[in-house]
C-alpha cells in the first residue's frame, strides 16, 4: 500500500517535472505553431462562413470530418485550447521555481574567486607599483554598481569577486509572467466583451445601445446576456465616400453626434467625425465605421391618390461598384381589414446601381462606379401577401419566396427606372424612383480587458528587451604582493571574466574593465605586462561558445530548467 502511494507520487512528480521542463515547453511551442496553421490554410467560420460552406461543398468527403474536428474553427477548437493550456501549466511550473531561485540569488553573494583565473575565457595580468590595499580600494571604486565580495587568501593575497546583470533574469521573469497576464486579459475579454453590428441611415437617424434587438447581428461574450450594455446613443447626420477614378476607395467620413451619461434623454449631442481608423470611444465602448451603402427612395401613389414614401437600405452585392439589391415594402394606406390588406401589399425588389451601366442589349443593369453619378434601379414589383403578418421574421433585403411559390404574391411589373422615372401598375398605382439616401454600418465593441492586454504587452516587450540586452557577467580580481620581484612592480594584479549568458559580446566591456583595473597606479618604470589576454573573442573573432557553454548550463540548472547541475568554474 505504502509503496503504491510512493509509486503514485513518484509518477506525479515525474509527470510534473516532465511537463515543466524546457524540452516540453519547446515541443508545446512547436505544437502551437503547427496547430495554428490549419487556421490559416483552411477557411474559418469566424472570418468568412460563406467560404467554409463553399469548401465543404467542394470537398464532400473530408469536409464534414474537418468540420467535426474543428478545423474550420481552429482557434476555438478544444485541441487548440489543450495545447495552450498545457503551455500555460508548463509556464507556471517553470516560473515558480525560477522566481524563488531568483529571489534567493538576489540575496546571495558572488561566488568565490576561482583558483586559476587564467583559465577563464577572459583574463589579463599585470604588475603595478601600488600596494595591495590601494589596488583593492581602486578596484572597489571602479566596480561601483557591481555586486562584490572582498576576500582574503593566505600570503597577503586579496580578491574581489563581482557580478552584474541580475536584471536579465528579472527581465526574463517579467516577460514570461506578462505573457500569462496577456493571455488572461485576452480570455477575460472573451468572457465579458461583446461586438454587434447595425445599419443606420445617414439622414439624422438615431441609434441607441439599449438592447440586443437594436442590433442586426450580435456576438456576445460567454457571460453577456444583453441586459447590461453600456448606455449611449448616436445620431448619423451625413456620410461622404470618395472614390478615385479607378474605383479604389479614397476616404470615408460620417458626421455623427453622440450622447452618453447625463446627456441621455436630453437634446445635448456631441459632434464627432467617424472615419476608418478613427473610432468613437464612448461610455467604455467603441463605435466603428464598418461600411456603407445606399437606400433608393420610392414614392408610391396609390389608386386613391394617397402617397407613401420609403427609403430602406439595400445591401451591396459588390464592394467594387456598390451594385446593391434589396426589397422596399409597402402596406396599402387606409386599409384596416387584415385580409384585404394582405391582397394589396407591395414589394419593390431588384437591383440598384449608383452609376448605371447597361449590357449590349441595353436592358441588363450593372454599376460602373461606386459613387452616385447616374443612379438607376431595375425593379420587379410584387403585389399580394408579403407574409409580414405570419409572425416569422423576414429579411429586410428580400421577400419571402414561399409566398411567391404559393401564388399569394405575384409579380406585376418589371422595369428599369432612372432617377425621377415612374412606372404604372395595372391598377393605376404609380411608383417613382425618387432619390437615393445613404446608410452606414457601424460596429459597437466592448472589451474592458483590452487595456490590461496592452499593459501586459508593454511589459512583455520590456521584459524581452531586458533579457536579451542585459548580460549576466562576472569579474574577479586577485591581487598579491610581488614576492619574487618579477616585472619590477610591487603588486601582481590578475583579472578574470566570465559571461554567464548566451550573448557573445562581453569581450569589449571586459577589455575596458581590465584596462582600468590594471591601470591603477602603475609604476612609471614597471614594464606593463598583459599576459595572455588569450580569449577576448570580440577582438580576435575566436570562438566564445566553448567556455560559455558551461556557464549557460550552470545558469539554466540554477534557473530550475531541470538539467544537470554544474558548478561555476
Amino acid at each position: 500500500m505504502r509503496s503504491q502511494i510512493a509509486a503514485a507520487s513518484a509518477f506525479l512528480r515525474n509527470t510534473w517535472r516532465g511537463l515543466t521542463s524546457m524540452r516540453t515547453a519547446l515541443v508545446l511551442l512547436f505544437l502551437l505553431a503547427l496547430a495554428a496553421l490549419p487556421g490559416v490554410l483552411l477557411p474559418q467560420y469566424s472570418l468568412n462562413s460563406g467560404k467554409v460552406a463553399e469548401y465543404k461543398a467542394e470537398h464532400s468527403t473530408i469536409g464534414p470530418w474537418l468540420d467535426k474536428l474543428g478545423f474550420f474553427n481552429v482557434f476555438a477548437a478544444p485541441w487548440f485550447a489543450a495545447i495552450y493550456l498545457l503551455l500555460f501549466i508548463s509556464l507556471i511550473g517553470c516560473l515558480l521555481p525560477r522566481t524563488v531561485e531568483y529571489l534567493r540569488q538576489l540575496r546571495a553573494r558572488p561566488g568565490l574567486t576561482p583558483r586559476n583565473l587564467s583559465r577563464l575565457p577572459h583574463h589579463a595580468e599585470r604588475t603595478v607599483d601600488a600596494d595591495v590595499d590601494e589596488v583593492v580600494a581602486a578596484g572597489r571604486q571602479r566596480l561601483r554598481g557591481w555586486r562584490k565580495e572582498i576576500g582574503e587568501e593566505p600570503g597577503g593575497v586579496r580578491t574581489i569577486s563581482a557580478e552584474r546583470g541580475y536584471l536579465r533574469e528579472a527581465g526574463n521573469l517579467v516577460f514570461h509572467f506578462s505573457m500569462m497576464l496577456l493571455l488572461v486579459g485576452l480570455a477575460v475579454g472573451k468572457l465579458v466583451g461583446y461586438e454587434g453590428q447595425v445599419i443606420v441611415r445617414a439622414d439624422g437617424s438615431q441609434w441607441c445601445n439599449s438592447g440586443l434587438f437594436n442590433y442586426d447581428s450580435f456576438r456576445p461574450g460567454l457571460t453577456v446576456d444583453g441586459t447590461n450594455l453600456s448606455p449611449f446613443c448616436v445620431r448619423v447626420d451625413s456620410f461622404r465616400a470618395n472614390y478615385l477614378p479607378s474605383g479604389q476607395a479614397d476616404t470615408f467620413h460620417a458626421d455623427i453626434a453622440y450622447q452618453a451619461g447625463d446627456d441621455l434623454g436630453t437634446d445635448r449631442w456631441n459632434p464627432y467625425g467617424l472615419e476608418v481608423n478613427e473610432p468613437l470611444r464612448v461610455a467604455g465602448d467603441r463605435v466603428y465605421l464598418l461600411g456603407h451603402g445606399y437606400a433608393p427612395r420610392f414614392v408610391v401613389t396609390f389608386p386613391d391618390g394617397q402617397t407613401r414614401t420609403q427609403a430602406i437600405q439595400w445591401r451591396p452585392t459588390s464592394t467594387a461598384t456598390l451594385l446593391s439589391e434589396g426589397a422596399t415594402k409597402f402596406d396599402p394606406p387606409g386599409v384596416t381589414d387584415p385580409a384585404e390588406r394582405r391582397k394589396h401589399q407591395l414589394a419593390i425588389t431588384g437591383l440598384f446601381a449608383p452609376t448605371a451601366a447597361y449590357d449590349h442589349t441595353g436592358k441588363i443593369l450593372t454599376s460602373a462606379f461606386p459613387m452616385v453619378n447616374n443612379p438607376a434601379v431595375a425593379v420587379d414589383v410584387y403585389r399580394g401577401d408579403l407574409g409580414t403578418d405570419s409572425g416569422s421574421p423576414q429579411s429586410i433585403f428580400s421577400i419571402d419566396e414561399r409566398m411567391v411559390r404559393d401564388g399569394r404574391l405575384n409579380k406585376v411589373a418589371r422595369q428599369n427606372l432612372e432617377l425621377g422615372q415612374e412606372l404604372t401598375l395595372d391598377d393605376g398605382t404609380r411608383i417613382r424612383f425618387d432619390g437615393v439616401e445613404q446608410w452606414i454600418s457601424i460596429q459597437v465593441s466592448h472589451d474592458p480587458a483590452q487595456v490590461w492586454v496592452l499593459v501586459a504587452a508593454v511589459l512583455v516587450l520590456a521584459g524581452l528587451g531586458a533579457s536579451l540586452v542585459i548580460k549576466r557577467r562576472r569579474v574577479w580580481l586577485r591581487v598579491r604582493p610581488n614576492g619574487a620581484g618579477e616585472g619590477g612592480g610591487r603588486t601582481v594584479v590578475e583579472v578574470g571574466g566570465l559571461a554567464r549568458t548566451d550573448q557573445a559580446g562581453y569581450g569589449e566591456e571586459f577589455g575596458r574593465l581590465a584596462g582600468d583595473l590594471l591601470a591603477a597606479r602603475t609604476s612609471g618604470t614597471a614594464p606593463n605586462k598583459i599576459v595572455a589576454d588569450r580569449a577576448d573573442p570580440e577582438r580576435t573573432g575566436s570562438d566564445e561558445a566553448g567556455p560559455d557553454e558551461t556557464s549557460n548550463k550552470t545558469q539554466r540548472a540554477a534557473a530550475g530548467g531541470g538539467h544537470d547541475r554544474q558548478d561555476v568554474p
Partner: protein
Amino acid sequence: MSINSTLSQYSDLSYTTAIAIYVFAMLLHAAENAFGRRAVQREQKALVAAGGVPLAEQPSRGVVDTGRALPERLGRMGVSLTVLGAALHFASLALRGLATGRVPWGNMYEYISAVCLGAVIAWLVMLRRHSVRQLGAFVLLPLVVLMFLAGTVLYAQAGPVVPALKSYWLVIHVSAMVISSGVVLVAGVASLLYLVKARHEANPSTFAKLGSRLPAADALDRLAYRTTVFALPLMTFGIMAGAIWAEAAWGRYWGWDPKETVALVSWVIYAAYLHSRATAGWRGNRAAWVNVVGFAATVFNLFFVNLVTTGLHSYAGVG
C-alpha cells in the same frame, strides 16, 4: 494626392538597376568562393608568420595588405557593389514615397522591396562586424529572387492607399515588420549554412567543396543568434503595434486574420529558437533547424498568405 509618374518611373528604373547590381555582386562573391580556397590558406600562412593565431575566420585586415589576392579583391568588389545596389534600392523606395506622398510600403511590391532592403542593410552591418564575406552569394540569392518576383508578378503601379491604410500606424507597424523580417532573412541564411558547415566539420567529405569555403560553424551560429536576437524584440513590437492598429481600424486587437496568425506563428518559432539554444541537447543543429523553419515561415508570410488567402490586410489583394 496626385501621383507623380516621372518620379515613379525613376523609382522603377532604380529598382531594376539595383537587382542587376545585386546579381553582379552575387557573381563576384561566387567567384571569390570558387577561387578562394587556396587564398585562405595562403593568408593563414602569412598570419602565422606574423605571429597571429590561425583562425579560419581571421580577418586579413592589415596583415597581408600588400598584394591582396585576386579572389579577395573580387569579394571586396562584391561588397562595394552591394553597397551601390543598396543605395539604388533605397533610392527606388524613396522615389516611390515621393511620387505617392506616403510611406513606400503600401502594397505587396513595395513591402517586399522594403523587406529586401532591410535584409541587405542588415547584411552590410553584419559584414562590418564579422568576417563572413564568404556568405555574400548565399545572402544575395534569395533576395534577388524575392525582388525579381516582387518586381514582376506582384508589381503595382504607384498609387494612393485605401482608407484603412491611412494611418500613422502604417509607418510604425510596417517599418518594424519590414526591418525585423529583413534581418531574420539574413539569420535564416546563416543558420542554413551552419547546417551545411556543421555536417562538413563532422565529416569533411560531405559538402566538401562548399563546406570548406564557409566560415566556421561557430561564427555562423553567432551570426544567426545575433541577428535573431536583434530582430525578435522588433518583431514583438511590430506585432503589438499591429494589434493596436487593428483595434483602431478593424474593431478588435486580435482576430486571427491569416496574416496576424502567421506573424504570431513566426514569432513563436523564434521564441522556440531561443529556447532551443537554452535546452540541453537542442543547441547547435536543432536550434539551427528551428531558425530555418522561422525563415520559411517569414517567406511564407510574405508570399503565400498574401496571394492565396484573403484576409483583412488591405494589401493582400495584389496590384
